């Protein structure tokens, strides 16, 4: 009883396949398949045909591996770049607020350095020209020479730091030190300026009373 239906189907198996998909269907399938250039196809066929099927698999694996490496590389670069821009943006903002207020704890990364250097160089130059103006007017040259020596010391240590920057692994710390160094110079110059300013003020205050004093002494 079972056999009759089974036998009937078996005998007429071909006739049961009456449907056909639309001819356009292949185009749709094709669009979903990964495209490959004819050259590459030819290469793979030739290689995989030679002796071993596994080689074509290896070839495929290599391509996948290369693609993954490339992707990961790109991703990592992008990620790092994004992080760096975030970092620099942060320090830039910090710098701008800090240089005007308290320059302690500046954290900078290498690309920032020229900007920082330029800023401090202009500051130092400004202070130095101001100082040189006083220099002529005021006494106490000894102290000024001391300042020059201190500045020279700072300069040499700065140069040493800059050399280290190219070899040391932790650039952040060195850049920190360098910024500290630059800031120290401006501070030294500022102090000097203050001193000279005060001296000048003292002198100007004293000048009117100096003559009578002189007179006094001459009188005495």
């Amino acid at each position: 009883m079972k056999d009759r239906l089974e036998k009937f189907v078996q005998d007429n198996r071909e006739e049961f396949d009456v449907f056909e998909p639309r001819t356009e269907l292949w185009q749709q399938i094709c669009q979903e398949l990964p495209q490959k250039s004819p050259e590459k196809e030819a290469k793979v066929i030739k290689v995989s045909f030679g002796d071993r099927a596994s080689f074509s698999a290896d070839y495929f694996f290599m391509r996948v591996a290369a693609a993954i490496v490339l992707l990961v590389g790109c991703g990592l670069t992008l990620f790092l770049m994004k992080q760096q821009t975030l970092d620099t943006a942060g320090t830039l903002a910090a710098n701008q607020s800090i240089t005007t207020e308290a320059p302690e704890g500046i954290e900078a990364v290498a690309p920032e350095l020229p900007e920082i250097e330029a800023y401090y160089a202009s500051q130092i130059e400004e202070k130095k020209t101001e100082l040189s103006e006083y220099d002529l007017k005021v006494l106490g040259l000894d102290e000024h020479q001391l300042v020059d020596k201190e500045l020279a010391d700072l300069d040499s240590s700065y140069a040493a730091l800059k050399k280290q920057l190219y070899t040391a692994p932790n650039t952040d710390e060195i850049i920190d030190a360098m910024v500290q160094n630059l800031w120290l110079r401006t501070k030294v110059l500022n102090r000097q300026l203050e001193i000279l300013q005060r001296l000048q003020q003292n002198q100007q205050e004293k000048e009117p009373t100096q003559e009578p004093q002189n007179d006094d002494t001459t009188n005495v």
Partner: protein
Amino acid sequence: MEKIGYQDVNQEVVQRCKGGDHRAQYELYKLYAKAMFNVSMRITNDYAEAEDVLQEAFVSAFKNLHSYKGEASFGSWLKKIVINAAINAVRKRRSELVPMDERTVANVPDEVTEDDAEWQVEQVRRAIQMLPDGYRVVLSLYLLEGYDHAEIGEVLGISESTSKSQYSRARKKLLEILKEPQFVA
């Protein structure tokens, strides 16, 4: 199901497909599209859905060709993909595919007296199409796709004995339909 000799004929084409050769892919498509479409049709019982299934199955087959190691013929490997895709499509459409509940079973009389009426292929084919999803799928897989009950059980996620009883019910129902007036030639 295809024999090993057939597989050997396809091996070269399959190898080229692995390299992404579209012409080779088309060759395989031409060779199997009709048979696979009818497999898909029998399970889904819906032309548009059967096409979607066929497309999905071929795309998936070509993309995952590297996992085809040649342990079975390419045809039966592909057929399994088509059947799985089709079953998923039917499941998505109707949640109560297999196992069938008792309600449907109750509709089928236990005894179907066999007569010697001549069958026409078209009659039987349309009668199969009239079966409810659960019956149609099991009966098609068994009668037309040449799956045994163990394979049907595996692909449908049911036990072998469930497949057997499901098939015998489906068969009874089919014979019943064939006796309906519009089917008697």
